[in-house]
């Protein structure tokens, strides 16, 4: 089917759409008639979509007024209050009294997950939350495995250091009971240690396989980490010298005599510091940050310069992020990054202006089920490599159907915890008086810019109306939810 059908032809013919539906073509079929999605070149809109969990009209206006650099520096400028206790309030998010039920009786951490969603969807510190998500995923821990321990990890490892240095974050991580439990270091002892944490510390958290460490290096790293465990009574970090395996250690270019079991924690700390500032770690982290902030394929020159920035700033995160965001590659990457499910749903919530229902906290289950159906509930990736960030990892039928079906639920109040769409707020005034103007208004509100004629054609097709068809205010409002659901189901809404 040609890309540019006349609207009238499509509107008056249901045959066209039906023909599309019945065809199970191979991926290459009629590829010549298709083009990559064109997106707005508006830089403020681009930055707002890429650096947050979803652009809103207010955020785009703010960013446009301040300029990217000033806005970014403001976003990165100060660490939000990190809650001193597990029970502390979250000042930047309208989530009342998270305290009591951060974890349920089974230690499922339901409200930590709901709070994570709430901060992404409604928090003001969008870039900070984006980085928190990035580092949570980099040092990924499956909450179902570690239960309530993840709560302290979220606060003391990720949130405390997301704008600090990676060295400090990693040092906190290697003493985080959640991480030690998740990767078995809490039971690793003696001369035949459990290598699980050591291997992933090397492979996933720091240098990566390209550093070409050997099995002996993995084992020595595991030996260096023996004794870093959890106190069975307090469930807090504890170093047990009697579990530490002494003897000379070598991991890549790091060596240690490691003679005194009482000083084993210093040995582990020395190794972690070495790894955090290793050039291969700089490369790995720069690659991941560029993939997140710019997209695939990652521009290798930008990775190299970002890695250099990381090392020159002694693993500081903010200068590295700033370097990437203020690059030309970033500016040229509008629309080139696919939304993962979590990004997609937060962007849908934000762009539609959906509000939180107070019920969300007392019963977060429907919200979490929605995130699970989409495939990306916080802290539910079981393997230690974190949710994937490549387009191909998410382009599946089940992911697509889950998004389309979630879109229908979102606009209809089908997710307890989220209020239904406020059609009047989406439309603004004056309320459009033709079907075409209605479609345009919703597209503008949700996507932030006008887009392809084909999208408008599709919207009109769905309501079987010509563009010029006059509609009443009541009709406009009644049609808004279903049209909005289609807009957040569109190819335009699948990219950031």
């Amino acid at each position, binding site marked *: 089917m040609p890309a540019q059908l006349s609207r009238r032809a499509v509107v008056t013919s*249901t045959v066209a759409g*039906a023909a599309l539906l019945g065809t199970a*073509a191979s991926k290459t079929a009629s590829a010549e008639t298709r083009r990559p999605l064109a997106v707005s070149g508006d830089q403020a809109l681009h930055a707002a979509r890429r650096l947050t969990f979803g652009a809103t009209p207010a955020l785009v206006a703010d960013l446009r007024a301040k300029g990217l650099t000033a806005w970014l520096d403001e976003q990165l400028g100060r660490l939000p209050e990190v809650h001193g206790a597990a029970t502390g309030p979250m000042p930047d998010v309208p989530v009342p009294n998270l305290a009591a039920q951060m974890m349920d009786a089974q230690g*499922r951490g339901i409200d930590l997950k709901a709070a994570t969603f709430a901060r992404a969807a409604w928090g003001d510190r969008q870039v900070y939350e984006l980085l928190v998500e990035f580092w949570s995923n980099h040092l990924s821990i499956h909450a179902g495995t570690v239960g309530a321990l993840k709560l302290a990890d979220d606060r003391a490892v990720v949130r405390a250091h997301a704008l600090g240095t990676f060295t400090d974050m990693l040092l906190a991580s290697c003493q985080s009971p959640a991480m030690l439990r998740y990767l078995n270091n809490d039971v690793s002892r003696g001369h035949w240690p459990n290598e699980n944490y050591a291997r992933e510390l090397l492979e996933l958290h720091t240098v990566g396989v390209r550093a070409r460490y050997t099995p002996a290096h993995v084992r020595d790293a595991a030996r260096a980490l023996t004794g870093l465990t959890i106190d069975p009574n307090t469930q807090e970090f504890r170093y047990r010298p009697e579990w530490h395996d002494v003897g000379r250690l070598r991991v890549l270019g790091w060596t240690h005599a490691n003679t005194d079991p009482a000083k084993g924690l210093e040995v582990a700390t020395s190794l972690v510091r070495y790894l955090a500032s290793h050039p291969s770690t700089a490369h790995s982290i720069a690659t991941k940050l560029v993939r997140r902030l710019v997209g695939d394929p990652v521009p290798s020159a930008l990775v190299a310069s970002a890695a250099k920035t990381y090392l020159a700033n002694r693993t500081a995160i903010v200068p590295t992020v700033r370097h990437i965001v203020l690059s030309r590659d970033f500016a040229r990457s509008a629309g080139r990054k696919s939304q993962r499910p979590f990004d997609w749903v937060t962007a849908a919530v934000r762009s539609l202006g959906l509000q939180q229902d107070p019920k969300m906290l007392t019963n977060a289950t429907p919200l979490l089920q929605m995130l699970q159906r989409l495939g990306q509930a916080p802290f539910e990736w079981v393997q230690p490599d974190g949710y994937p960030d490549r387009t191909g990892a998410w382009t599946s039928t*089940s992911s697509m159907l889950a998004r389309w079906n979630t879109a229908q639920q979102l606009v209809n109040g089908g997710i307890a915890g989220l209020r239904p769409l406020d059609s009047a707020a989406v439309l603004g005034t004056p309320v459009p008086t033709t079907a075409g103007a209605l479609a345009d208004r919703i597209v503008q509100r949700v996507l932030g810019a006008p887009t392809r004629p084909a*999208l408008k054609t599709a919207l009109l097709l769905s309501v079987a109306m010509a563009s010029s068809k006059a509609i009443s205010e009541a009709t406009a409002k009644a049609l808004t939810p279903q049209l909005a659901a*289609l807009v957040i189901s*569109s190819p335009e809404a699948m990219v950031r």
Partner: protein
Amino acid sequence: MTAVTECPDLICTRRRLLTAAGGVAGLGALDLAAPTMAFAGSRQGGDLLVVITLEGGADGLSLVPPLADRNYSLARPDVGIKAGQAIPLDRTFGLHPGLKPLLPYWNDRRLAIVHAVGDSDGTRSHFEATNAMERGVRLGSSVGTGWIDRYLVSRGLRSGDFPSLAISGRPAGALVGQAPDLSTWDVRNIRVQVAAARQRATEQALAQMYAGVSGPVPDSARNTLAALGRFAPFRDKAYQPRAGVSYPADGLGNSLAQVAQVARSGVGLQVACVTAHGWDTHEGMGGTTGYLNDLVGRLGKAIAAFAADLGPLMSSTTIVTMSEFGRRVQQNASNGVDHGHGNAMLVLGGGIRGGRVYGRWPGLASAQLDDGDLRVTTDYRDVLGELVQRRLGGRSLGQVFPDHRPRPLGLARQR
């Protein structure tokens, strides 16, 4: 705080995940076991291939313990399978007691075992190994497609085919590539959930808005729209397995039941991939009781149920298990085994010359090991290559495995 005593770093037990999910219905994102299927309107001259991936690195030395190798019991005083516990297969090997449901297939020579098999390259990283094995290529290869996809392409894609279906949240690595791949958690629930009166218009609008756009996401959208029609016959159809067959009530059992439903419907299923999680047994794996025993027991039951359910279709079906690597010979201090190398594969089917353990056993004496691990003497692609050539009607092995020339072991009869 839950006390976790076993294998926490990978998918762990389904039991625990189900507990963690509480009353969560639908359990889509829990990623329990994910069948991925490839099918065409009618299957042309090749077996149905069912690939069961044991994710996390299954311990082949527990699945098929080398009872006669005394270094085995020395290395595993606490977690091994003892001679009296295993089902003897031949002079060297036994079968894990949990796989007893498969014994009839061994006895009637439809179940073959390949031991000391794996990726010749031998990384001990889950992610590298999985990635290389899904693509069926050397480590570091730039080939971006999966081996099953290349097999399907080598068979020739026809317009109107529905080459692949996934019952998972994400695409299966082995299916990534040219052949359209489809995944879903539930073959009985592929639909756009919207009021019936708006169903058709909604689907048409979606088709229209994705029609002119190229790229992986729009491709996926088109496959999804095509699937809506293709799977309409399965919608809300409760599946009735063959009389007397009951699948374990877990992710793998559920996945294989879905595969059986589609296979038995006669739509021409060509390839299905299912995943069983939880094999990364670093800790507290147990012996003939405990964590791993439970996992192996459910694997045995699920495969046996599937084979029984397919009935006569098993004569043109081949089931193969794969895992990214085996595990260390020596147990660790937390009663587990760390990442290793050589492994065992199970191959079951009507066209298999079973009742035999294939491959050269390299021994477990320390000088015979590869960095402390069972040495790989057979590349996994030798097994797959033979299946592709003799059972699946694959036309170009060079296309399917571009950087490895498979050497057949003789475990499959030419179809």
